[in-house]
């Protein structure tokens, strides 16, 4: 947390007064606001992402309280609808995105031996756009009323299907805040994506050919390309929607010939790559962590690169699988079913390669590795239910049911968030110079495994029993009581786990054991500099001969470059 950019955290960590010899609070704040350093911007991204994760988690907890028993009246229907809209939007755009951008921000230059990103000021611009976009979305709770006192926060769901978002059905300004908040943040993310690509392609150190890059960097490269290709279409679709709402255009107005399906096509043309944009970073994290803690080189590096690129390509051609139930022709449904299942192949390759890396290794079960194994198991479940959902006839039963909710939480929570937790435990020492508590980490891991599987496993069953998503209440005759109760009880474990995580983050920032440069005995370049790294990252420009430069250094008798 020493690199935390948020003012609250800064207050905590910055004892004001001459005794410490530190500059006063304001000059500290000034430094954070004006910084163009990739490590500081990255840390601010991550801290903001974690704060939004807590907010969005609390929103989910409120919903689970409402749904714990049938017929509860904890929330009004409007409040419930706002909560799931804000929960989804926040988790995707203001938790997943900033944490991935932040981690890539910190790690890409360190891993490729560069001084900073290609465009440091553009990087700062991207961060502040993200922050203001997210604040704009949350300001809707106060500003969404509009002239007629309609609504407050948006209540149209995170994919905001037209025509529900048209002025006729969504009065007030809440949906405008949704559009603008994401639009602004999206411009920032696109700019940062461009920045990453330029950095990776143009700023690698001596010796680091493309095929000698750490897989983290490869995956982030594909991720950034997807960002640059997929986010502008969303911006264009949102512009059309905004013109409909504010200027009276007719893009999605069925009465004037406009099409509700066009929005779905445009949104999911962004939305499905977006899902891969979110999950690829988790792949990147565990691809770095699993080899280090198994003490083995990653199995099948070239195939991993190929699989990553394949996922990127295929993900641009699967968006219609979100629309299997809209009544498209059987042929179109079949084609997109095939393309969707095809994406399972490169993903499966990755699963096999991670497992093959572990087999024959000497695995150390430190917290980052525990979370990575949690990722493997849960992402496997999410991937397999993904194959279920890709099968059109099955999808006709369970699309828009709790089965889908369970599925994508296995992917995005069991996958992405577990990956993020693994990455936090793994790189926290590099960023702050101190270790996180292993004891708290292991408690958190087991609490989360129990809570997570209880909550989202039970959701699959409610979905199979016919429970649609996004309903604010249900009746006891439906027979969904038990599964909903289990889902809600799981939340208690998760809250406990994340409380431990917050305590661990803050406590370790002050009291954590000193980390040293290379606490995990790892192999990529970031571990060759100090923890935290100096502003210029490396005292000497690094030169690499293989994918694992530190392995070469530690084992000069048997270096990697002989085998690559």
């Amino acid at each position, binding site marked *: 947390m020493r690199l935390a950019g948020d003012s609250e955290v800064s207050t905590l960590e910055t004892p004001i007064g001459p005794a410490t010899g530190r500059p006063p609070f304001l000059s500290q704040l000034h430094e954070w606001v004006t910084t163009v350093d990739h490590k500081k911007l990255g840390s601010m991204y991550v801290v903001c992402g974690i704060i939004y994760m807590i907010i969005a988690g609390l929103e989910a907890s409120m919903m689970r309280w409402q749904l714990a028993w049938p017929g509860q009246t904890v929330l009004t229907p409007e409040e419930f*609808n706002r909560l799931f809209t804000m929960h989804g939007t926040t988790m995707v755009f203001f938790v997943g995105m900033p944490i991935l951008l932040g981690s890539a921000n910190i790690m890409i230059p360190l891993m490729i031996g560069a001084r900073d990103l290609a465009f440091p000021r553009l990087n700062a611009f991207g961060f502040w756009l993200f922050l203001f976009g997210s604040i704009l979305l949350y300001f809707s709770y106060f500003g969404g009323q509009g002239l007629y006192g309609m609504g407050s926060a948006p209540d*149209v769901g995170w994919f905001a*299907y037209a*025509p*529900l978002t048209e002025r*006729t*059905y969504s009065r007030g300004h809440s949906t405008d805040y949704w559009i603008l908040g994401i639009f602004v943040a999206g411009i920032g993310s696109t700019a940062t994506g461009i920045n990453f690509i330029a950095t990776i392609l143009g700023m690698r150190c001596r010796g680091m050919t493309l095929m000698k890059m750490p897989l983290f960097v490869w995956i982030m490269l594909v991720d950034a390309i997807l960002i640059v290709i997929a986010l502008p279409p969303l911006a264009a679709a949102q512009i059309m929607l905004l013109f409909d709402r504010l200027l009276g255009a007719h893009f999605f107005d069925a009465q004037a010939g*406009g099409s*509700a399906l066009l929005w779905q096509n445009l949104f999911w043309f962004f939305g499905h790559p977006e899902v891969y944009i979110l999950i690829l970073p988790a792949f990147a994290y565990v691809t770095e962590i699993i080899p280090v803690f198994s003490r*083995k*080189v990653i*199995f*099948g590096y*070239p195939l991993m690169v190929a699989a990553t690129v394949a996922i990127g390509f295929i993900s641009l051609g699967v968006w219609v699988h979100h629309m299997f139930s*809209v*009544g498209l022709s059987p042929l179109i*449904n*079949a084609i997109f*079913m*095939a393309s969707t*299942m095809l994406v399972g*192949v490169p993903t*499966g*390759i990755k*699963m*096999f*390669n991670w*497992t*093959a890396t*572990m*087999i024959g*290794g*000497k*695995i150390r*079960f430190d917290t980052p590795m525990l979370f990575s194994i949690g990722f493997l*198991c849960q992402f496997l*479940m999410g991937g*397999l*239910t993904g*194959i*279920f959902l890709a*099968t059109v*006839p099955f999808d*006709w*039963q369970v699309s*828009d049911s709790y089965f889908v909710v369970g599925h994508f939480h296995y992917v995005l929570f069991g996958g992405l968030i577990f990956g993020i937790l693994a990455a936090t435990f793994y790189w926290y020492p590099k960023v702050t110079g101190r270790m996180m508590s292993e004891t708290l980490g292991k408690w958190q891991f087991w609490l989360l*495994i129990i809570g997570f599987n209880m909550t989202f*496993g039970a959701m699959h*069953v409610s979905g*199979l*029993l*016919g429970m*649609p*998503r996004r309903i604010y209440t*249900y009746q006891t*005759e439906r*027979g*969904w009581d038990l599964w909903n109760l289990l889902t809600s009880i799981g939340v208690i474990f998760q809250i406990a786990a994340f409380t431990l995580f917050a305590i661990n983050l803050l406590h370790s920032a002050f009291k954590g054991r000193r980390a040293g440069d290379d606490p995990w005995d790892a192999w990529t370049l970031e571990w060759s500099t100090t923890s935290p790294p100096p502003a210029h990252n490396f005292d000497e420009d690094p030169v690499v001969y293989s994918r694992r430069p530190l392995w070469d250094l530690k*084992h000069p008798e*048997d270096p990697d470059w002989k085998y690559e």
Partner: protein
Amino acid sequence: MMPAGILGWVMAASCSAAAAPIAPPTPSMFDPMGEPASIILNITWLLIGICGAIAVVMFTLIGYAIIRCRAVEGDDREPAQIYGSSPIELAWTVIPLMIVFVLCMVSARGIFELELETPPEGATEITVTGHRWWWEFEYEDLGIITAGELHVPLDDNSVADMFLTLKSADVIHSFWVPQLGGKTDVIPDRINHLWLQGNRAGTFVGQCAEYCGTQHAHMLIKVIVEPREQFDAWVATQQKDAVEDPAVAQGKHLFLRTSCINCHTVRGTVANGTFAPDLTHLMSRSEIGSGVAPNTPENLREWVFDPQNIKPGCDMPSMKLTRDEVDLICAWLETLK
């Protein structure tokens, strides 16, 4: 984490669903009541088989790694570095491709079997219109318009086919009765069709599956599959105009004087609004407000007094009637059998 566990839950759930007493059974897709739902369930069993096998293989491998490949205390030597193996990597590229191919072929067949362009022979044709937040059912051949409850007859082979034409009056909804088949969305600028089938008498429930606004949770669908005679009797009743009963004329006049008639139709009176459910045979239906409460005299009174108390956000406003006026109107409504 535990595929076997999840499978166990589903099995238990479908058993309990099958044993459910009088109330409509849990709308479980594992309890199919017709061909479409059965086709889907068969594909689902195939999926469970294949994906279950993949899960077993993967968990075995991961479990093996976790148990047998642990670091030993005090052993600082690095393990053998294995950079990859072309035959193995080729195997786990090609085998999944083959699995995907098989799954696609099997499921594509299911798609073509289930997505019908024209009604199967002898099917009851019904036009379904999704409204915020209730369902309108129109039997064009029979001249019946009703809401919330769909009646279909069993034919001689004890099969009730229905071919639905799906339209929306406002936003996107989705029509889903899991025991009778899959769902299809109901979209304003588009006409969709859906084939469902019931193969035994009973009431099967489902609800709107696409988020459509405040009261998305209360868009109940009840499909009542019944023997031919019962259905014919129902049709005969529905085709009649509203009952005239002088005893409740006061309530009727009150109803016709208020703006109720702008939205509701009661055939045989001047009320001919189309925004809200047809009330001509209100008492033949068992639910108020699309499943928000059972259709009992007390609930009906509370509903007419202030619907916003019962179904907040719905389009029916409180008409600011006194309790006495509500009693009069409801006394009349209760005769609309």
